[in-house]
């Protein structure tokens, strides 16, 4: 399905793709196989950076910048912040089955997913309608094209996105605040009860 590769591809493109692909796969394996959650988060940074390089290679410069800023700048920092806040950066035996045959089932399901997606990738897959929203090969920069599409064709989804972000902010505030008894009756233990209990079994009230 790959076609003749070396005959048609220039060497810098090929080298960029192969190195970025190696970074992406290596980082993803680091996320899955890393014992320490902090190491998994740092491997996630590696994968996201590799994907950003691939975005540049595919002429999506704005998305590459947003990928770096939003994902590695905000989301992974949020992950690391939660890891440090909760103190869960302890080791975990990754390769130990939690129930019998878990890794076997996971491997079979993973192979099924891979085979299915690769099967869908074969054949003449690029059969969709071409350039319905806006052609990429117009003499505009990537940012200008993306901005025109977002603020004309996709204006309503863009506005709804703002509502989604407000909902997420309110939800984060509600979830992260400590409930007191005056808030809703049976709202769980007070902060004083939960703060001093190292093991959470007593804190659940059972």
């Amino acid at each position, binding site marked *: 399905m790959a076609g003749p590769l070396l005959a048609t591809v220039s060497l810098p493109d090929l080298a960029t793709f192969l190195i970025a692909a190696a970074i992406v796969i290596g980082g993803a394996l680091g996320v899955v196989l890393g014992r320490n959650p902090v190491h998994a988060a740092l491997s996630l940074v590696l994968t996201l950076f590799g994907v950003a390089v691939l975005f540049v290679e595919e002429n999506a410069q704005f998305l590459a910048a947003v990928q770096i800023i939003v994902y590695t700048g905000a989301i992974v920092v949020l992950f690391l912040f939660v890891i440090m806040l909760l103190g869960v950066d302890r080791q975990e035996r990754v390769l130990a089955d939690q129930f019998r045959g878990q890794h076997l089932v996971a491997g079979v399901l993973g192979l099924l997913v891979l085979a299915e997606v690769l099967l869908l990738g074969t054949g003449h897959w690029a059969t969709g309608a071409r350039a319905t929203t806006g052609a990429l090969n117009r003499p505009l920069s990537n940012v200008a094209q993306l901005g025109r599409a977002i603020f004309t064709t996709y204006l309503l989804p863009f506005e709804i996105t703002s509502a989604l972000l407000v909902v*997420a902010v309110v939800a984060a505030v509600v*979830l992260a605040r400590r409930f007191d008894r005056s808030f809703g009756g049976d709202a769980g233990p007070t902060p004083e009860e939960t703060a001093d209990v190292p093991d959470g079994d007593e804190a659940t009230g059972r």
Partner: protein
Amino acid sequence: MTIDGSWYLTLAAVLFTIGAVGVLVRRNVLVMFMCIELMLNAANLTFVTFSRELNDIGGQVAVFFVLVVAAAEVVVGLGIIVAIFRRKVGATADDPHELRG
């Protein structure tokens, strides 16, 4: 001549598979969440590849919205994880009985 799009699609398929297997194998909730991010990135890579192949900016717009939704999802998900860990320190995905009211 740039790389053929099917190479990007193959890479995205492998990345998606690694993320899916990670969700199935790991029991740390935070790491499972990171594996979901891996799958989202595989989908984003597919979107950008088809955007280039079909000469349509709509795929990149879709990736833009996926990024926004992923940010909101991470905020809410991590809030839920913090709330769970506040109730029971060291909870894993193997503790579903904690879900009962």
